[in-house]
């Protein structure tokens, strides 16, 4: 179990992590989701005692990481696929790490096999692809057979087979009762892997809930409406909390009001509606919704096809 209380990290004038508190429970996969620069890696480095928090504290299984008697057997972490001297072979890297805890060579060979590095274990890490580097990082994290596993962006650079492998691995580890904490900026990956989600944006926790709750709770229900008088319906629906997007002629997407409300408004005003379809918000959309004010770097894409027309005060 990982417990963070008021964890804060300030670099100069920039607050990377601003007083976050959360608990990562054992026996399930907890996803740590946020856009780039949200503070995920900083938080994970603080858990591992590599960065000292400006204020606040974080404990792993009740103790600060540095106070564990056998840290590698307690917590395994993949913080960065490049946390390796690249002139050393994968086997020697793992061997040196294992030596600190008297972990036998047989275990080193075991994690090499487990992560599919058998063919390249005796090669220098310099020549590794990003995906092989990730596998080596995961092998290092598993070395001490730890109760708690922290993986920072484990699927980055992995091929599709590797992505599925990581997904199954973390689920299996959690099913054994271990604490699994994995970060990603990819919502779609989290939707498939995590049981519980902690969403972070600009150093603050935005959501901390089971994944199902995040999809249904935060994601606003949207309704697709087809009508032959879109402009008139937009004006009629305009109001607090209601937003309408005109996607194409005669097609609207309405949120902030349920289909029954839309139908009533249309009926009362004699506007013909020929489609009313409730749209399930995808996790991706829920995520965008959650973090849209929190992303550090916005990209602006201009497409002629769908210019959102916002009606009503937001």
């Amino acid at each position, binding site marked *: 179990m990982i417990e963070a209380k008021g964890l804060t990290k300030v670099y100069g004038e920039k607050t990377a992590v601003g007083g976050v508190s959360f608990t990562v429970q054992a026996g399930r996969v907890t996803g740590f989701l946020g856009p780039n620069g949200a503070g995920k890696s900083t938080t994970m480095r603080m858990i*591992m005692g590599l960065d000292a928090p400006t204020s606040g504290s974080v404990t792993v299984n009740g103790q600060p990481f540095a106070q*564990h008697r056998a840290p590698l057997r307690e917590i395994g972490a993949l913080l960065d696929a*490049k946390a390796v001297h690249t002139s050393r072979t994968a086997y020697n890297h793992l061997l040196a790490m294992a030596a600190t805890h*008297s972990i036998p060579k047989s275990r080193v060979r075991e994690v090499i096999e487990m992560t599919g590095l058998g063919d390249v274990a005796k090669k220098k890490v310099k020549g590794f692809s990003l995906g092989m580097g990730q596998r080596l990082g995961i092998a290092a994290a598993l070395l001490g057979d730890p109760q708690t596993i922290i993986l920072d962006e484990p699927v980055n650079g992995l091929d599709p087979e590797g992505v599925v492998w990581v997904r199954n691995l973390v689920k299996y580890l959690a099913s054994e*009762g271990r604490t699994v904490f994995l970060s990603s900026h990819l919502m779609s990956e989290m939707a498939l892997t995590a049981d519980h989600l902690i969403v972070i944006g600009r150093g603050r926790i935005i959501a901390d809930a089971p994944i199902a709750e995040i999809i249904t709770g935060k994601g606003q229900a949207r309704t697709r409406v087809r009508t032959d008088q879109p402009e008139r319906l937009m004006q009629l629906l305009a109001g607090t909390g209601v937003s309408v997007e005109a996607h194409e002629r005669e097609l609207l997407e309405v949120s902030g009001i349920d289909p029954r409300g839309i139908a009533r408004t249309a009926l009362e005003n004699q506007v013909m509606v020929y489609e009313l379809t409730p749209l399930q918000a995808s996790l991706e959309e829920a995520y965008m919704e959650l973090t849209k004010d929190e992303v550090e770097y916005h990209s602006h894409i201009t497409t002629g096809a769908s210019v959102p027309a916002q009606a009503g005060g937001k």
Partner: protein
Amino acid sequence: MSTTTVDRKSTRNSVGPGPAFHRVLNSEFIKFRTLMSTVILLACTALVMVGFAALGAWGTGSFAEQVASDPEAAAAVAAQGGDLAVSIPTSGIVFAQLILGSLGVLLMSSEFTTGMARSTFAAVPKRVIPFLAKLIVVMVSAFVLTALSTYIAGLVALPILGNYDLKLDLGSSQSVKLLLVNSIYVAAVAAIGMALGTIVRNSAGGIMSLVGLFFVAPIAFQLIPGDFFKEASKYLPGNTISPLTAVEHVPETLEAWQAGLVLGAWVVVPVALAMILLKKRDV
């Protein structure tokens, strides 16, 4: 959580050994010997030491032969000849200190430039333990390598000197003293290098500061007019080796014991600073 998890944890804590010092020392030694660049640098040092001793023996020999016709010079050489020959095995020491000092820098700075430091200090969060383990590996290997290559250099120089009828006794007290003092000195330089590598965290910067301290500063201090720099120059780490190895005390230099203390301070202060910074800074 569930009872199974609790059981798991308690049994785990009772079986697994943690990062005790001897285990970390073993890990640092594995890291040391599994880098090809380290092995190459060590081999280069040995080669340079032996090569310079051979050249020194040849040069000294032919010099002695040339002056043999001049009775006055010959007498001077005869009086000093033993001293000339005895320092031949360590004639490459300036280069050994440069290479092994740089190795000290590299072994620590590369931890940070490659990101290995994150693995190292995640495995052993009490950062002073891997630092000291690495320091021991660096100093012991610098000492052993210098001592061994000095001895081999002596063995190579012997037959060359013999050609010129010059004598060198590798077992003499002065030979043994030179071998030991020079080896300790190189180990000290390697320790200073490692401290610099920890402070600067950058390979080029660390090696440049080492070169600045040992090669640039002594020359600069001599060029700057004024008694202060002449006096201060004696306290530079690179200038401690000649009083330490001198047969008799040379005027205007430090006494051997003073030089020893100065060199010791040059090791202890940067190493202490490096340890404080290593503990305080983020990895």
